[in-house]
C-alpha cells in the first residue's frame, strides 16, 4: 500500500501536488501505525521485558535478572551441559520437523487438488465446496474429532482396521507426530489449494493454446508454463502456511497433550508460563520463537525473490 502511494510521488517529487499527496498519505496511515503500536509492538515489548525478569504468574513484577533466562545454567541456551537446553531443543526440533513435513505434504497435495479443480467437470462447484469443509472446522474441533476417530479401542479408523483383519493401532501414542501431521494436512490443504486455484484462474490461456498447437507434452507444459507462472502465488501460500506451522499449538495440545514426542515451541511457552508459572522463562522462549519465525520469513522471502529474479 505504501509503495503504490509513493511511486507516483517519486516521479514528480518537485511539484506541490506530490508533497500534498505524501502529507495525506502520512495522515491516513497514522491511525494504522498507532493501532499497530498498541496491539502489536507494546505487547511484544512487554514480553521482551518480562523475559529479562524472574516474573511469576502470581507476581508479575519480578526482579531484573539480565539474560539468565536466555543463557546460563537456568536458561534456554549454553546451560553448561550443552549449547541448548534439552527440553527446549526437543520443542524446537519438533516444531521445525512438523513445519517442514506438513507444509511440504500440503503443498504437493494442494497443487494436485487445485489442478483438478481447475479442469471443467460436472459438479465442480459442489466438489470445491466439499473440499473447503475441513478448513471451515475450528482446529480444536477437528483435532478432537480425529482424536476420537483414531482412538484404539472404539475409534472408527481402528474399527475399520479390525474389520479388515489388521491389528489395531494406537495412532496418537505410537505415531504421535504423524498423527499430528495427518490432522494438519487434512485441515489446511484446502486453504493452500484455494490460494493456488486462484493463481491458476489468472493464467493467460494463449500460452496453453500455443503449447497445444506445437504439440508439447502436458507434463512439460506443467513444468515449463504452469509452475513458473504460479510460482509467486505458491510462494505466498507456502510462507503463510510456514508461519502458521511454526507457531502451531492447538492441534498438538488437543491430540497428544504436552508430551516430549510432539511438544512445539508454543507448547513449551505455555507449559512454562501457565503450568509452571515461570513467566520469565516462558517469555524468553516466546521471544526466541518470534525471532525464529522472523528469520524464517526473511530467509524465505529472500530466496523467493532471487528465484523470481532468475525467472525473468
Amino acid at each position, binding site marked *: 500500500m505504501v509503495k503504490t502511494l509513493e511511486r507516483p510521488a517519486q516521479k514528480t517529487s518537485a511539484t506541490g501536488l506530490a508533497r500534498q499527496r505524501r502529507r495525506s498519505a502520512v495522515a491516513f496511515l497514522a491511525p494504522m501505525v498507532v493501532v499497530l503500536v498498541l496491539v502489536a509492538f507494546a505487547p511484544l515489548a512487554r514480553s521482551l521485558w518480562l523475559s529479562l525478569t524472574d516474573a511469576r504468574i*502470581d507476581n508479575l513484577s519480578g526482579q531484573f535478572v539480565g539474560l539468565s533466562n536466555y543463557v546460563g545454567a537456568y536458561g534456554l541456551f549454553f546451560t553448561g551441559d550443552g549449547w541448548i537446553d534439552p527440553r527446549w531443543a526437543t520443542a524446537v526440533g519438533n516444531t521445525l520437523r512438523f513445519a517442514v513435513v506438513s507444509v511440504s505434504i500440503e503443498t504437493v497435495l494442494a497443487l494436485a487438488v487445485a489442478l483438478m479443480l481447475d479442469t471443467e467437470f460436472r459438479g465442480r462447484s459442489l466438489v470445491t465446496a466439499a473440499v473447503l469443509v475441513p478448513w471451515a472446522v475450528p482446529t480444536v474441533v477437528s483435532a478432537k474429532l480425529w482424536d476420537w476417530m483414531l482412538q484404539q479401542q472404539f475409534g472408527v479408523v481402528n474399527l475399520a482396521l479390525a474389520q479388515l483383519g489388521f491389528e489395531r493401532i494406537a495412532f496418537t*501414542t505410537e505415531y504421535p507426530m504423524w498423527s499430528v501431521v495427518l490432522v494438519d494436512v487434512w485441515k489446511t490443504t484446502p486453504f493452500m489449494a484455494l490460494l493456488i486455484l486462484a493463481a491458476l484462474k489468472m493464467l493467460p490461456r494463449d500460452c496453453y493454446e500455443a503449447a497445444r498447437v506445437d504439440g508439447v507434452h502436458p507434463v512439460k507444459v506443467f513444468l515449463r508454463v504452469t509452475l513458473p507462472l504460479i510460482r509467486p502465488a505458491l510462494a505466498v501460500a507456502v510462507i503463510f502456511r510456514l508461519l502458521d506451522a511454526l507457531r502451531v499449538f492447538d492441534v498438538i495440545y488437543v491430540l497428544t*497433550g504436552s508430551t516430549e514426542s510432539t511438544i512445539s515451541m508454543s507448547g513449551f511457552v505455555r507449559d512454562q508460563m*501457565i503450568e509452571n508459572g515461570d513467566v520469565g522463562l516462558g517469555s524468553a522462549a516466546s521471544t526466541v520463537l518470534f525471532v525464529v519465525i522472523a528469520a524464517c520469513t526473511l530467509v524465505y522471502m529472500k530466496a523467493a525473490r532471487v528465484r523470481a529474479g532468475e525467472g525473468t
Partner: protein
Amino acid sequence: MIYKKLWRALAAFAMIHAAGTARAAEITVACGSVGTDIEVCRKLMADWTAKTGNKVRIFLTPNSSTDQLALYRQQFGARSGEVDVLMVDVVWPGIIKEHLLDLTPYAKGVQAQHFPAIIANDTVGGKLLALPWFTDAGLLFYRQDLLDKYHEKVPATWAELSATAQRIQDAERRAGNRDLVGFVFQGKAYEGLTCNALEWIAANGGGTVVEPDGRISINNPKAAQALDMAARWPGTIAPKNVTSFAEEEARSVFQGGNAVFMRNWSYAWDLAQKDGSKIRGKVGMTALPKGEGGRNASTLGGWQLAVSKYSAHPAEAADLVLFLTSKEMQRKRALLAGSLPTWPALYSDPQMLKAAPWLARFSGVFEGATARPSTVTGAKYNAVSSAVWNATQATLSGRTKGADAVRGLEKELTKVRRGAAW
C-alpha cells in the same frame, strides 16, 4: 444549607450501608465444578447461611485443576479478593503459600482431629494454610470373580500382581476373551502418572523423589528398579497404549469388564457399584501392593478449603471454612457425594458405617498415604512433577532404562531447584 443536609443524608446512608455489610457479609466460594460438586456445595452452604445470616455466592471454576490453579494464580498476582474461600488441591498449599491466610488462630486446635498426614501437607512454614475437606488415595481395584475362578489371592506385592495378572490374562485369552488385559493404570504424561510413579518408587524403598528436607533423592537403584518393573507392563499385562490413559480411560476398560486389576482413586468404587455397571458385585478394593521395600504406598489426593489473603471478610470466610470442614458437614458430604472424610473418627462411627458401609474398606489405606513432594518444592512443584512424568513415560515407552531415567531426572530437578534451596 441544602448542601449540608444532603451531605448529612449521604453520610447517614453510607453508615447504614457499612453497618449492613458488617453484619451480613457476602462470601464468594469456589467449591469445584466437577460432577455434583456445585449441587452439594449449595446444600452445605444453605446450612451456614441459615446459621450465620451471611450470604454466599458460588464462583464457577474451570474443570481441570491445572486451569483452576492458573486462574487463581493470576487473580492472586492482581491482589484480587474476588474469591474469599477456595478449594485447594492437595499439592497446592506449597505453590500458593504466599496468598493464603494462616488459619491457626481460627482453627483453635480442631486440626488435630483430622488425619495428621493431611494436616502436615497443609502446614507450610508453621502456618496452617488450609483445612482438609475430603481426601483420596491411590487404590487397587480387582475382579473378585476372576481371582476366584483361577484360585488366586489378592496380590500383596507388585511382583505378585504382575504374575497373577499375566496368568489370568493368558488363560482368559486362550478361552476366547481376547480383549482382556491384566492391569490398567494412569500412564498418560500428566499429574496422574507422577502419582503412579511415586507409588511404585516409594513402595520399593526408593524415597519420594524429593525428600521433606529438600534433598533430591530420586537417583537411587531402588527407584530405577521400580521404573524398570513398570516398564515391563505395557505390551505384556497392560495395553500398549496405557501411556495415553488418564483416570477415565483406565476406568472405562475396567468397568467394561476388560481388566483384572486397576489402579485408581476412590471415586471408581461408587461408579462400579451403580446400576448398569458390567462389574457390579464382582469388584474388590484394597490398598496398593507392597514393593521390595516391604511397605505399601498410596499417593495422597483430595481437596482442602482455604481463605485468600486478599479477602475483605477474612473472619467470616475462615468461619465458613471451619463450618464446611467440620465433622458434621463432612459426614453430610460423604453421604451426599460419596466423598471420603478427613476425620479418622468418622471411619469407625457406627451411625456413619450403617449409612455408608463402603467406608469401612478405606480404613487403613490412609496409613500408607504418601504425600507428593509439593510442600517442600513450593511454587516449583509443577515443574518437578512434569519432569517426573516425562522421565517415567520415557521409561514406560522403552526410550530409556530406569537407571538413565533417574540420573537424568536428578539433573533436571537440580536445574528446576535453581541453587541449594527450593
